[in-house]
């Protein structure tokens, strides 16, 4: 969940239950009623309820005696987040790999089947082990919204003068429709296809928007930004619908966006969907990613970055496989970093590794994030690649957080599977994030 969200609209409800199957029924009842109260429809609420049922049942079998399981629901506008906090003696979270194969002959693995089922009832699932020796499982279930691409878009008119301001909900919906109409060939996040979703995203506090509007209410342009995880804000735009060159709309939208986030805890501002009106004068080029469409045509997508404050320097953990790349990039970006190389010295480790995957259907891409390192990293990565090939996902990425030492353990397997470091997102996670892209379409 965002640490940077500006709104205060979070609806939160939680229940703490003993880790005993006798309490399964209250857990289910709580999940169902809360999901509906937080705005999910019956179908979505049922999916969440089933996920909770599977997870609670599984956790009852693996948690310590006399332990409790805390289930926290939070409504964040366009999605609900469910955090499940528990202590576990042993937790084989391998089942959370989307590629996890369950053998019906093995009773232990059958138990884990529930986790697998649960992971597929929700849109995103992450598991973390925190310093207080507790597991925190985060489930995200997004609300469904109607598409309105076919609805007419009012004319922009000619803006003689304008002010940059925060839009009301109806203006936000108009902004979404204008973006779809005027930027139909541009690359923008799928969320912008749904006007109602954009309104909920902004009302939820993790997103914000500004429009350029004249005294008659015409919308000449807009910019949207997202307080994402860590200390990064990502902006989309500036979208300009009135191309009167004397107005300087694009520059003003960018400046006002930067000024709006300047005094938040954010450290960096990203733009990964630059449009024609975007000005590099305010940003630095981090690198490019190659995005292939279903026909195999590729295009280069630049990632632009702006640091919001003076860099204080940092130490990062890095695998030797990308040390040379990191030194060159940090030098090019003038980022002071102390590189600490990580290597495996035969110490004991987990049997199984875990990866979580974020799919973005609009860009036909999948991004993997490490959840746990283990002895089967190479095999696990290969299994994921096979699945992506089967699913015809063309663009494969892996995000390695250089603030977390064990993320480096994935580097040898990544390199051997043809992944190349393409760009560094400074302060993108606990530390800087290196985005790897697999060269070419998986064979």
């Amino acid at each position: 969940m965002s640490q940077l969200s500006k709104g205060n609209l979070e609806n939160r409800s939680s229940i703490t239950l003993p880790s005993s199957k006798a309490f399964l029924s209250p857990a289910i009842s709580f999940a169902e009623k809360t999901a509906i109260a937080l705005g999910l429809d019956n179908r979505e609420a049922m999916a969440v309820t089933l996920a909770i049922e599977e997870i609670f049942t599984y956790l009852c079998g693996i948690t310590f005696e006399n332990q409790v399981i805390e289930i926290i629901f939070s409504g964040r506008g366009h999605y609900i987040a469910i955090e499940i906090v528990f202590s576990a003696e042993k937790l084989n979270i391998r089942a959370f790999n989307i590629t996890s194969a369950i053998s019906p002959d093995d009773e232990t693995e059958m138990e884990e089947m529930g986790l697998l089922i649960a992971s597929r009832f929700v849109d995103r699932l992450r598991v973390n082990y925190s310093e207080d020796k507790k597991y925190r499982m985060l489930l995200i279930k997004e609300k469904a919204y109607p598409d309105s691409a076919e609805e007419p878009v009012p004319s922009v008119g000619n803006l003689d003068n304008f002010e940059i301001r925060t839009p009301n909900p109806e203006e936000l919906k108009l902004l979404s429709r204008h973006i779809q109409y005027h930027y139909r060939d541009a690359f923008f996040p799928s969320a912008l296809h749904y006007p109602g979703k954009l309104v909920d995203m902004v009302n939820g506090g993790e997103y914000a928007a500004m429009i350029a509007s004249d005294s008659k209410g015409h919308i000449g342009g807009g910019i949207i930004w997202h307080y994402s995880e860590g200390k990064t804000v990502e902006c989309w735009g500036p979208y300009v619908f009135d191309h009167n060159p004397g107005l300087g709309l694009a520059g003003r939208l960018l400046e006002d966006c930067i000024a709006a986030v300047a005094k938040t805890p954010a450290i960096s501002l990203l733009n990964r969907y630059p449009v024609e009106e975007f000005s590099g004068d305010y940003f630095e080029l981090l690198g490019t990613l190659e995005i292939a469409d279903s026909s195999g045509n590729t295009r280069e997508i630049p990632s632009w970055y702006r640091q919001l404050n003076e860099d204080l320097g940092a130490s990062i953990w890095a695998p030797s496989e990308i040390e040379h790349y990191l030194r060159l990039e940090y030098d090019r970006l003038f980022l002071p970093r102390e590189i600490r190389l990580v290597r495996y010295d035969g110490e004991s480790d987990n049997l199984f590794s875990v990866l979580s995957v974020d799919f973005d259907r609009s860009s036909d891409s999948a991004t993997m994030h490490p959840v746990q390192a283990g002895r089967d990293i190479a095999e696990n990565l290969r299994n994921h690649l096979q699945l992506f090939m089967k699913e015809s996902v063309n663009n494969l990425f892996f995000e390695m957080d250089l603030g977390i030492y064990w993320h480096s353990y994935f580097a040898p397997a990544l390199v051997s599977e043809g992944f190349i470091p393409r760009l560094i997102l400074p302060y993108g996670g606990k530390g800087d994030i290196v985005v790897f892209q697999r060269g070419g379409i998986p064979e």
Partner: protein
Amino acid sequence: MTFSALERLIPDYIRRFEAYIPSKPDDELKKLYGCNRIFRLNNNENPLGPPIEAQRIISGFPPVKASIYPSGDVYYLRQKLADLTGLHPDQFLVGNGANEVIAFVIKAFCREGDNIITADKTFAVYEWVAEFSGFEARLAPLINFEFDDEKMLSMVDERTKILFICNPNNPTGTYWSLDKLSRFMDRINGSRIVVIDEAYFEFVEKEDFPDGIKLIKRYPNLVVFRTMSKMYGLAGLRIGYLAGDREVVDVIRRTCVVYSVNTVAQEAACAAIMDTGHIEKTREMVKRGRDFLEKELSLLKLPFVSNEGNYIMVKLPMSDSLAYRKLMKHGIMVRTMTGFRFPNYIRVTVSHMEYLEAFIERLSTVINREK
């Protein structure tokens, strides 16, 4: 062992707030950026240091006096300030830097639901202190780089307690004249506390620039901030003060932390304020430096905002934070202005000519422009 109750103990307004992280010490910065010197053009410090007599007091401070508590209410400095201004010593409150007295005023007058009003692009501490204390900070946009009196007045409501005006404004250097300030005070009509922050008062030579302390008798709701950190070169000792009507200061004193100003700072400040020659020397240095910077920045075709104070704001054709990192590689430290809501601007302290020449030389490389 973890402190599991911590989360629920944190008030919402603190949860939203992020701690200010100051820059690292010079030696650490040199290591980080691989440079062998630091020219500090970031904090508007006076490179001449404190006045000579203050320097003598600092270097001659008997170590054994460090074991004795300082004067809790900064007795002698208040006496001297009273002598110089004609006010009563009890009309002054001295703090551990002017930042501390900002907190005293807000704590004294604001309670839950109250608000303060200031500008959006000014010294950030008024806004910060209000917000991390749980009060709303209403921000009036600058107009032509200047505080907008009409907009500020339009934002006042029944829960407004304090209006903060930075005069001259940091970082734009613009100021309200005596006439403008008086008109503003007349319209406030004693209904709210008005704070005039005069951190850069001693740098201004303009005839129409108001001396806030002289207006206190006429406007008892006026509180004036001054600092010893800028003109008097005592930033490292942390000492600043406020002046106001005796009844107002009596109220603020109730929130004041006593013994927060150390003995060296008190004694050095007493000496510093008596040295008018230091002000003249500093003003001459700033004038020479400002003329140089204005000429060189014009040759580089860079827009700049140069008014009062010992600083100039420069607009760059690139991200200010990137320019900061590139300049730091060569040991030149400026202040990025994104945090002041001026994207792509940097603020440069008008300092020694050697520093300014090095800055201009590096800047032309960073922006890749020939003069």
